[in-house]
């Protein structure tokens, strides 16, 4: 029994001690980054960019979040972070509505709030409108631009002709809606290509796969599918494979977790649009640093994307955008 207690205390002490926080925090410059969830490659990559920036400007980065994308989990973490009174908080809010009041607490405590990747309220800050107008900036991938890039790349791959459609999650999600918007914008430049009705799969890869087969049945000249998020693309690719049309019907994916490398190499997916989460983290910290030092910042910053293909995925300059696990 004594051994048990000793082991317990030892274990707790050990986990608290081993990743020792930089107790000698540099001055007062502490910036907190609260991801939507801690176990996702996208946010882990974002953290790397943020750390790079923090090191460059001599700030300490607090990276704290919950294991699930859920306000119930995120809010207590936020509150503990507020107690540390960091110079600024970067957060990927897990709900547009429910994070408004908790983030207001930080704002009221004099801590500047910047949202990354996702936003609260309408995502348009400092315009004098809405309850969630107080964050100073929203930094995220320019999804319209990402969709546009996907459209241009697909048009080129299919030789400027044939039919394509967007495999999307469901209407009403800001990010995927913007990707579709950008994709269709690009297609306007290519009169030889017909854009079919968008198919909604509710984030179910299986459904996305069935939809490809149904669309192909009606449109034998189907040439390409744009999967607006990972599951849409994986599902679409699977459907194409089942049709035996891999390489003929081209699939473009949005997002680049590490499995995408294999999918590109095997040709199941032809192209992937990689967001730059590290860039989001980097600009997030830089923006926070500017705010801490009294500079003004733009209320919206859009970060870039990169097109990945089988041909360029081995190039280190491209491969670095694969989200790290």
């Amino acid at each position, binding site marked *: 029994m004594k051994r048990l207690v000793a082991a317990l205390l030892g274990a707790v002490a050990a986990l608290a001690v081993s990743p020792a926080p930089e107790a000698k925090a540099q001055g007062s410059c502490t910036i907190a980054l609260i991801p939507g969830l801690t176990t996702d490659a996208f946010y882990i990559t974002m953290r790397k960019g943020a750390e790079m920036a923090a090191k460059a400007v001599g700030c300490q980065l607090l990276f704290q*979040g919950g294991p699930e994308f859920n306000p119930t989990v995120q809010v207590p973490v936020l509150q503990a972070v507020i107690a540390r009174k960091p110079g600024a908080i970067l957060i990927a809010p897990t*709900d547009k509505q429910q994070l408004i*009041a908790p983030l207001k607490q930080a704002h009221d405590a004099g801590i500047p709030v910047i949202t990354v990747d996702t936003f609260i309220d309408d995502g348009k800050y400092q315009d004098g409108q809405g309850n969630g107008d107080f964050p100073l900036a929203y930094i995220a991938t320019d999804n319209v631009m990402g969709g546009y890039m996907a459209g241009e790349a697909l048009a080129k791959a299919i030789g400027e002709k044939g039919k394509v459609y967007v495999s999307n999650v469901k209407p009403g999600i800001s990010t995927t809606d913007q990707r579709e918007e950008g994709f269709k914008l690009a297609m306007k430049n290519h009169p030889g290509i017909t854009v079919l009705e968008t198919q909604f799969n509710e984030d179910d890869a299986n459904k996305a796969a069935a939809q490809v087969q149904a669309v192909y049945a009606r449109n034998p000249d189907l040439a390409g599918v744009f999967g607006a998020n990972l599951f849409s693309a994986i599902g679409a690719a699977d459907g194409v494979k089942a049709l035996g049309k891999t390489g003929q019907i081209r699939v473009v994916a949005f997002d680049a977790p590490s499995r995408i490398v294999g999918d590109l190499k095997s040709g199941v997916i032809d192209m992937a649009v990689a967001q730059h989460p590290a860039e989001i983290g980097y600009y997030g910290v830089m923006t926070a640093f500017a705010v801490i030092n009294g500079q003004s910042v733009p209320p919206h910053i859009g970060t870039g994307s990169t097109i990945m293909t089988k041909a360029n995925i081995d190039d280190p300059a491209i491969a670095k955008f694969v989200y790290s696990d």
Partner: protein
Amino acid sequence: MPPSTSTIAATGADTEPRRHPALAFLMAAWPWLFLVLLLAFFELWARAAFSTSFLLNPYNLKSIALFAALPLLLGLGQTFVIIAGGIDLSVGFVMGLAAVVMARAMQVLTPVDPALALAAGLIAAFAAGIVPGLINGTLISRLGVPAFIGTLGMYGVARGVGFLSAGGTTVPVNNPLLFVMGNGTVLGIPIPVLVTVLVVLGMHWTLGQTRFGQYTYAIGGNRTAAIRAGINVRRHTLYLYMISSACAAVAGMLYTARFSAGAAQAGEPLLLDSIAAVVIGGASLFGGSGTIAGTVIGALIIAVIQYGLVFINVEPFWQFVAVGIVIIVSVLIDQSRHRLTGEKKEEG
């Protein structure tokens, strides 16, 4: 008194379990000691690393209390169910369902009258919460469905109905009274914490001081004995699951109030925390033991660990490990407590 040789006690004397009194005390009091140690640890760390106080910071205390309140509410009802030898896996989604139903009702009625909307919202949430308990209790007590399976089914049903009524997203409510209920304070204590304290006191009394509580222990200790003693075990079991889901409904109300929105997934991450709180607090998953005070301490331990580790900026993944270790250790301690206090009967 006659000489004890003519009495049964003579043979009972040597059945005294061999144990050290100090050790027995440690076993019974360990959750309290552990909480004190945790607080001392974070206090020292805060002083050493950031030369600030962890405990004397009212903001920290308030945040921890708010953090602990929701899993604790689920744990309170769960304590009754677990003592009686059952389990309620549906509480998380019942909480979410209550939160969504309340938000929906208030969304409709707030433009009419904010006060009326709040009253209607609370009633609707309570009703939405109590029905799953009624069904759970009926399945388990009348139809003999195992608690694990019955409440797992309700977990799915409440989840589905919750998302359906929320239309798959969160349901925002803009009601000033609701905001006060969720974010106001009385004498510096947040209202959700006060509500939780009231429920704790009521539950503590019910479990420790009334026949109802006594029957709960008896059913968990020996169901047959309870039946033979004339206790209406079926009806009692029904009540237990209704208490559990009523607690979940209260948690849902407080959630909606705090966040000015209802969400079906609100309680999803809280189920395991609530069961952990009950177990850390000294209840056995086999039934028969457990206390409300223990569950309160258990919930506080979980909240303090998770909050404190964020506060001192420990790598997030280590936080899972820490909570996991505490649960395993508490179960191990429970096991050895049973061994030491003589689970097996020695004959004289």
